[in-house]
């Protein structure tokens, strides 16, 4: 079989970016949660907030560290595998990605150290300020990344001259048509991720009857967040979808599994889309609902995949099912938010074992939803790398062979498997140590030690302490 460098490069990029994405999406939300805990501690003086903050800062440190390591690989991928794309877009992409790096360094140099290690060394107000700045900084970082991605989805502000894009308007290029929706959708996703992980871990501690009062408070905050944000995310997601319909109709057609442009299109609950026959098998549908959702008219016209040639269609099966998985996770979140509200009304949200067990499982749901969502938006853009302007094949490194791409694909999988299984294993140890261990005074002050993000966590790699 001929090794296809294009397919392998896309797999490699998907692997590396999916692996990377789960870390920042968590830290962005968690940084804000920590800032809230620090603010509560500052205002009320109640020691419980500080106890919680000490624990969650350790979790943040480890996840942040893993995010940084996996992110470095990302920044080289553009050049190694997609050099035509990098070269063509460098006038925009170069400064934007550099500004992301600058933001991250500035954040790390100026505030992260104070947040992780400065609690006893600076006034409490300064520590709170550092927490807020770290939270803000993670958002600024994601601003640059999402701006770069949005430009690939809905290009604007650029002009092509001699094979290179030139920026004619920075504001138009940074804030393209899909940017605002994407940014809000991702920001909410980050908050939801933090809320559900905090809820799941706290529920687990409560089930074990560990630090009950402390963890109950964390659970309470997380459930309020969930109640506020999960329904809001459904609304924002709908707006984002309408924006996509306007600018990338084929992506929406793939999401809906709609092969023919038609009026009164049904919403498919289940189907096996078949790109060969350009039709679906085993459809289970609700009549006219897709038209209503997308056009707010029961008989509205929904574009179908027949509007472009078969080879210019996105991979329908992947987009169709990823979209359904994302939506299912979102609806589950809404369900748990409402369940929590009912239990709270009966003052029992911290007693129902089935609810707490359910929350433990739900801590995985935001990661599944985020990855599925990114697969929808990235695969749905195919075959375009820059929508309507440059295909994946055109953006690929011309000198790349299938063997080279296969070598690094396997290589990255091996490296990541080794390194991140150690990281995740360690993170689970920090979770097991819990609020108690995070608040235990350390026997020995670590004078000569590096002040690395991981240094903020005190679990040892093996054994029980």
């Amino acid at each position, binding site marked *: 079989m001929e090794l296809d460098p294009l397919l392998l490069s896309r797999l490699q990029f998907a692997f590396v970016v999916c692996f990377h994405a789960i870390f920042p999406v968590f830290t962005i939300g968690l940084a804000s949660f920590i800032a809230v805990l620090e603010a509560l501690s500052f205002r009320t003086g109640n020691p419980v907030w500080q106890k919680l903050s000490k624990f969650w800062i350790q979790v943040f440190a480890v996840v942040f560290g893993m995010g940084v390591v996996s992110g470095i690989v990302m920044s080289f991928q553009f050049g190694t595998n997609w050099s035509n794309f990098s070269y063509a877009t*460098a006038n925009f992409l170069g400064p934007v990605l550099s500004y992301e790096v600058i933001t991250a360094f500035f954040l790390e140099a100026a505030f992260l150290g104070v947040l992780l290690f400065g609690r006893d060394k600076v006034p409490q107000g300064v520590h709170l300020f550092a927490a807020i700045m770290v939270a803000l900084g993670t958002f600024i970082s994601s601003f640059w990344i999402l701006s770069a991605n949005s430009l690939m989805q809905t290009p604007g502000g650029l002009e092509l001259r001699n094979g290179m894009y030139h920026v004619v308007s920075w504001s138009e290029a940074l804030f393209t048509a899909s940017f605002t929706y994407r940014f809000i959708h991702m920001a909410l996703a980050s908050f939801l991720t933090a809320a559900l992980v905090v809820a799941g871990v706290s529920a687990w501690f409560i089930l074990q009857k560990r630090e009950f009062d402390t963890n109950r408070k964390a659970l309470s905050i997380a459930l309020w967040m969930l109640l506020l944000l999960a329904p809001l995310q459904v609304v924002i997601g709908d707006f984002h979808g309408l924006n996509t319909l306007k600018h990338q109709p084929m992506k929406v057609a793939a999401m809906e599994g709609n092969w023919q442009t038609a009026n009164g299109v049904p919403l498919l609950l289940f189907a096996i889309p078949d790109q060969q026959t350009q039709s679906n098998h085993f459809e289970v549908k609700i009549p006219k609902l897709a038209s209503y959702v997308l056009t707010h008219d029961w008989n509205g016209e929904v574009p179908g995949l027949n509007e472009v040639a078969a080879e210019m269609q996105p991979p329908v099966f992947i987009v169709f099912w990823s979209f359904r998985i994302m939506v299912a996770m979102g609806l589950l979140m809404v369900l748990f938010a409402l369940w929590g509200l009912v239990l709270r009304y009966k003052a029992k949200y911290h007693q129902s074992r089935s609810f707490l067990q359910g929350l433990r499982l739900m801590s995985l749901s935001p990661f599944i939803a985020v990855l599925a969502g990114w697969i929808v938006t990235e695969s749905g853009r195919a075959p375009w790398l820059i929508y309507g302007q440059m295909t994946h094949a055109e953006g690929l490194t*011309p000198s790349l062979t299938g063997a080279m791409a296969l070598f690094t694909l396997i*290589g990255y999988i091996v*490296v990541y498997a080794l390194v991140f299984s150690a990281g995740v294993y360690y993170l689970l140890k920090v979770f097991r140590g819990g609020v108690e261990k995070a608040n235990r005074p350390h026997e020995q002050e*670590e004078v000569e030690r590096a002040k690395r993000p991981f240094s903020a966590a005190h679990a040892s790699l093996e054994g029980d302490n």
Partner: protein
Amino acid sequence: MEQPFDLTLIWAGIIAFGVMMYVLMDGFDLGQGILFPFAPDEHHRDVMMNSVAPVWDGNETWLVLGGAGLLAAFPLVYAVFLPALYIGVFLLLAGLIFRGVAFEFRFKAKTSKYLWNWAFAGGSTVAAFAQGAVVGAYIQGFKTENFRYVGGALDWLTPFTVITGLGLVAGYALLGATWLIMKSEGEVQQWAYKLAPRLLLMVLVVFAVISVYTPFVDPFVKQRWFSGFSAIWLLPLLALYCAYVVFSSLRKQHEGMPFVATMGLFLFTYLGLLASKWPYMVPPNYTLYDAASAFESQLFLLLGFLFVIPIVLTYTAWTYWVFRGKVKAGGYH
């Protein structure tokens, strides 16, 4: 757009400065990893790792900053070097990841400590070799057509780049050993005193091979150096003088001078290399002006760099100040 001033030249200066900072600073901490397998016991290794633990990630900041800056200011370099060095870049990244993670976990490990020792040593050595091979590949030049790399996957791996790769491994080890002399005492320091002269000798051998070989294979370099004697001949002379200072200060058991003089050796060799190739940034075909991005993009990012570089420098200086003085083995649990 009419350019009021030569931003491309300013950016070349920034990138050259960033690369130099990276080589000097990450050099001595990669050096600890290269010397790791040769250390007599865990006590030595603890001191070695502790001597760089507070600063190593700040040192690698310059690599990431330089990489991002290249894409923004000289996209052609980014779009030719990375495809041409595809396999090497992977090795470099994998090496840096393993050693980075070893920093985090070795301190927390007990029974698995030896695994992290290997990750640290292997990762550092591979990363250093890959960087040396990049230097060699740059001297060799790249097969390009119409602003694209058109060579093969392993064009970069030649006897010459293997020599430059090993040369940089030896060079980083020398930086590492002299850094260790400055930061340690007792038996660890004595061990480093013994290693350093041998490493210096290896570096000088590679230095000689490259200096003799390069003008032979590259007529451009030959022309630059042998068409009359210009001021650039000062650079290798200064480099040799630095090597002499390293040697004599090692003999007199000075503590700080060997490290300072080794940095001088690196600096003048680096400047000599730049002088050989100037103004070619993607040799043999493209100069820095061919490789540059648009004026407005360079300007847009320059504002950010002017803001962040002083902060990174201040932060770096502050970290080194806080962790000044001799290191001990203990202090962690």
